[in-house]
């Protein structure tokens, strides 16, 4: 659905002529005339108003009864009164009724001081109550979930939380139980309300009924300061406001930015701030002691000397990897040091994914082909390709649901793993893990009408009829098509994707285009800053192409490279082929890392570990999915001896004989802006609090021109045939992250390995939900608990990547592969030497 046009109508409120957009509700329309109408239940983000609280009653001439301003749209010539005696009497009475059962325990309540009920009672209430009868009592405090405390006495039944659960996050868990005066909010059977977006109801609650357990009694509104910044836990980069007291982040609130997050946060963004103040945080430089072989605290000067010596010794055999919360500036300085001072071309930030040809990258980054995040909400058709937003870019999940629910967006989901968006989709398709290239090529064939669709579908193990339906939906469902695709698709399918976009004529069309979901919080920004093996700043060609991450690992393991420099990256945990990276880390002569938390790799192999800043301490810029350059601002002071990262890189560089000329953070920003042509002229002031999309600035014309014409998409490899074994598909759960594991509030959610099996395979293996299985590929085995999921395609098992233990990356090799799944613990595991990658186990082995 294209965005509706805005027409203005004129109406009168309290004797003022006010012009407001047609169709907005009176509450919003009144704001155009600076008239405030009090509300509790009305929240435009939740969709259609319900008129439950009756606080917004106003008098409209021509209508005998008072009307709820939250559900009465403005009309031309309407005459509204909000200050008459009738209205005042109604407001006073509503407040009095709301307070009949409200306990008024404001001194104890966490909402006290920032509570709409307090404010509105002071502003519109009678001031005294005539009710002397005993109030309704509930047991309190109660846990609604480990993250949320519920106090039912305080609830005024505004329905906001229930509407959020039912209509926004669509987890359908919260309901109103009982009826009338006994109504209370809860889950139907009393189970804890655990959902990826549950924390939003804390912010929605207009009273203190739903409060954060992590923030419980931590501070009062007058004790705290708000500090706006951006969350860097995933590429969605939601805008947040840190609540800071005594130089500690105590809470994270959403900072509504329509172009980024629409005002919602996931629970990881909301609660993983606790990792900033974790006991395990590194706050001083650590250097490996040559005698004891342990990492010991050291002074900065000594640590910098040791690191510089190690890097100098490595020289052109040094490789650098950036990831996580690395800002554009840090990435830019890192690649300058590695390329200019060390003369090594090996820098990468692509999380171990295959290297994408630079011309292809330039074509995909073309400003005309770029859709914006709000486009997801107003497009005719949205295709989600190879990603489950809930795990990869959480807040976009809500954005897509909103588009489908409110604007009639036709959603198509094409993934290998069943997606959380399937129930909302008009069409969902599955392809086999490893069949990405064949699938996108088949989509190209279906859209363009050329090529052998059935053979390609066969190679991708996808349903040709569904693909044709998808092509028809994309072609005939309206011109505005947005394709949300994942960097995890790899490199091979991208030419076909470009051809699909060309066939659908997405280039240059407002409201249509592609959005890439990168891996890592600032994946896009780091690539644009030049932190990749085959691309310099601004997607230019580097002087010498370097090795991508995977080859770096192989070269380190074989001794071709000697030194590894990690900036917020943890390749052993995050990148595919864990064992290769373990070998690489062990084999490296020196390992220099900037990290906030120690992990086993660093503990065993690091030469120097610099304490890194957390995202609340950083200043710099990052780039969102759709090219929005956003600004990280310092919210709290750096703990202990932590230094700014640009400063550490600049100090190292000086010791390596290159003066970067960076004395302050903004100087690094200026250097970056000068080096990237399409950022030209960008200033921190211009970025401001809401960010700015570089495609919308004049300098965007300096973006590298993409090669024209259809791209040769190559011959896709077929996805492996299971033939009795199972295909391995992997995904990275939202909860698989070290910051989740060290946050006390979120610890209970930390991802554990589970094998998602189809009912057919589960029955064949004789395992049920919760049973333990071993998943084996070659000589690597991962233990997992079985989760039988109805819509997992038979013949495939899905495992989580990047879990703390038993990560699926252990099994991931170079090629997509087959694994054997065996019940564990019932009998000794069958020796599986014969079961090499792709080899077929005998039926006995599988069935027994």
């Amino acid at each position, binding site marked *: 659905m294209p965005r509706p046009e805005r027409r203005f109508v004129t109406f009168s409120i309290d004797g003022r002529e006010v012009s407001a957009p047609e169709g907005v509700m009176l509450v919003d329309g009144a704001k155009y005339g600076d008239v405030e109408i009090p509300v509790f239940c009305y929240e435009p983000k939740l969709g259609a108003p319900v008129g439950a609280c009756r606080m917004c009653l106003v008098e409209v001439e021509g209508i005998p009864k008072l009307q709820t301003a939250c559900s009465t749209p403005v009309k031309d010539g309407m005459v509204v009164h909000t200050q008459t005696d009738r209205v005042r009497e109604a407001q006073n009475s509503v407040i009095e009724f709301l307070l009949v059962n409200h306990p008024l*325990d*404001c*001194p*104890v309540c966490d909402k*006290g*001081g920032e509570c709409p009920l307090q404010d509105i009672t002071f502003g519109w209430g009678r001031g005294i109550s005539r009710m002397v009868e005993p109030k309704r009592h509930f047991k*309190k*405090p109660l846990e609604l979930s480990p993250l949320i405390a519920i106090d039912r006495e305080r609830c005024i039944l505004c329905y906001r939380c229930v509407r959020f659960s039912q209509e926004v996050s669509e987890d359908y868990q919260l309901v109103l139980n009982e009826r009338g005066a006994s109504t209370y909010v809860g889950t139907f059977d009393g189970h804890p309300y655990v959902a990826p977006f549950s924390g939003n109801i804390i912010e929605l609650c207009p009273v203190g009924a739903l409060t954060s357990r992590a923030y*419980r*009694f*931590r*501070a*009062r509104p*007058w*004790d705290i300061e708000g500090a706006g910044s951006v969350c860097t836990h995933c590429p969605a980069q939601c805008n947040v406001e840190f609540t800071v007291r005594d130089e500690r982040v105590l809470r994270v609130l959403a900072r509504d930015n329509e172009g980024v997050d629409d005002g919602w946060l996931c629970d990881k963004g909301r609660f993983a701030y606790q990792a900033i103040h974790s006991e395990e945080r590194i706050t001083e430089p650590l250097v490996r002691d040559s005698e004891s072989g342990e990492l010991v605290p050291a002074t900065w000067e000594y640590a910098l000397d040791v690191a510089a010596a190690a890097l100098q010794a490595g020289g052109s055999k040094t490789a650098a990897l950036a990831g996580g919360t690395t800002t554009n500036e840090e990435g830019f300085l890192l690649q300058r040091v590695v390329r200019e001072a060390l003369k090594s071309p090996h820098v990468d930030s692509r999380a171990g994914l295959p290297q994408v040809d630079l011309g292809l990258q330039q074509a995909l980054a073309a400003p005309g082909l770029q859709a914006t995040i709000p486009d997801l909400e107003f497009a005719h058709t949205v295709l989600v390709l190879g990603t489950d937003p809930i795990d990869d870019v959480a807040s976009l999940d809500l954005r897509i649901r909103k588009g489908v629910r409110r604007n009639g967006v036709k959603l198509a989901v094409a993934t290998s793993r069943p997606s959380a968006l399937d129930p909302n989709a008009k069409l969902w398709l599955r392809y086999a893990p490893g069949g990405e290239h064949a699938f996108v090529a088949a989509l190209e064939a279906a859209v363009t009408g050329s090529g052998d669709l059935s053979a390609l579908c066969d190679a991708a193990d996808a349903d040709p009829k569904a693909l044709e339906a998808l092509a028809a939906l994309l072609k005939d469902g309206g011109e505005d098509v947005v394709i949300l695709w994942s960097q995890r698709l790899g490199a091979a399918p991208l030419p076909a994707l470009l051809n699909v976009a060309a066939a659908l004529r997405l280039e240059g069309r407002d409201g249509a285009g592609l959005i890439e979901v990168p891996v890592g919080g600032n994946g896009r920004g780091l690539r644009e800053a030049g932190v990749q093996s085959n691309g310099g700043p601004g997607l230019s060609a580097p002087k010498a192409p370097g090795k991508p991450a995977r080859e770096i690992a192989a070269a380190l393991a074989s001794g071709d490279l000697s030194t590894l420099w990690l900036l917020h990256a943890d390749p052993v945990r995050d990148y595919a082929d864990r064992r290769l990276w373990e070998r690489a880390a062990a084999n490296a002569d020196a390992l220099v890392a900037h990290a906030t938390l120690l992990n086993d790799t660093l503990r065993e192999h690091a030469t120097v570990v610099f304490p890194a800043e957390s995202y609340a301490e950083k200043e710099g810029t990052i780039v969102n999915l759709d090219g929005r350059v956003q600004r990280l601002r310092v919210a709290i002071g750096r703990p202990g001896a932590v230094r700014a990262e640009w400063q550490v890189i600049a100090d190292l560089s000086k010791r390596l004989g290159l003066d970067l000329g960076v004395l302050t953070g903004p100087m690094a920003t200026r250097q970056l802006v000068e080096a990237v042509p399409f950022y030209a002229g960008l200033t921190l002031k211009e970025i401001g609090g809401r960010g700015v999309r570089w495609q919308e600035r004049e300098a965007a014309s300096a973006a590298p021109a993409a090669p024209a014409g259809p791209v040769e998409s190559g011959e896709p490899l077929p996805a492996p045939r299971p033939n009795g074994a199972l295909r391995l598909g992997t995904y990275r759960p939202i909860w698989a992250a070290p910051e989740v594991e060290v946050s006390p509030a979120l610890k209970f959610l930390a991802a554990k390995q589970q094998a998602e099996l189809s009912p057919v395979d589960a029955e064949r293996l004789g395992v049920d939900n919760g049973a333990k299985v071993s998943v084996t590929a070659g000589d690597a085995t991962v233990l997992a608990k079985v989760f039988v999921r109805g819509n997992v395609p038979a013949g495939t098992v899905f495992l989580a990547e990047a879990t703390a233990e038993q990560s699926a990356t252990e099994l991931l090799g170079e090629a997509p592969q087959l694994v054997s799944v065996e019940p564990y613990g019932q009998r000794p595991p069958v020796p599986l030497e014969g079961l090499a990658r792709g080899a077929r186990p005998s039926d006995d082995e599988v069935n027994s």
Partner: protein
Amino acid sequence: MAWNPGEDVVAVQRAPKPGGAGGAYRAFGETLRGLKTTFGRMLERPVVYQYPEEKVPVYPRFRGRHKLHKFADTGLEKCVGCSLCAAACPADCIRVVAAENTPEHRVSAGERYAAVYEINLSRCIFCGYCEVACPFDAITMGHDYEMSDYNRTDLIFTKEMLLAEPLERTPLRTEDE
């Protein structure tokens, strides 16, 4: 050209010229009038209080050092750590950090209690707003005004110090005093 003040000129009133009978009266009469007060008070006892041995009794509403209170029957603290006193304080000298009561560790009557309650008495202006703001009458202004110390940091009073029964160092004025 000089400015003509015109009507604005104010005539300065000066004392009468000395001399004559008026001069004599001023020289002796006024002196004697003053001495009358001096001699008149000569037989009274001195009014100087020998502080610190002797202290002036204070009025019941005198605002001295703060006190925190407990319930007499249960022994629980009245303060629930709501931090309203800190909000009301114009000198910003109160710091409250609240925490949650647990059944094993119950400090106050409500859900929360003040884990840290500090008043920086070197900043306090003894206005008594904290007492007015307190919804539980947990903090009141006492009568003690003897708080000088050798160290500024010793003037930060913690919860334990404020809860402790203060030394009765200051006599209270009785009703007829």
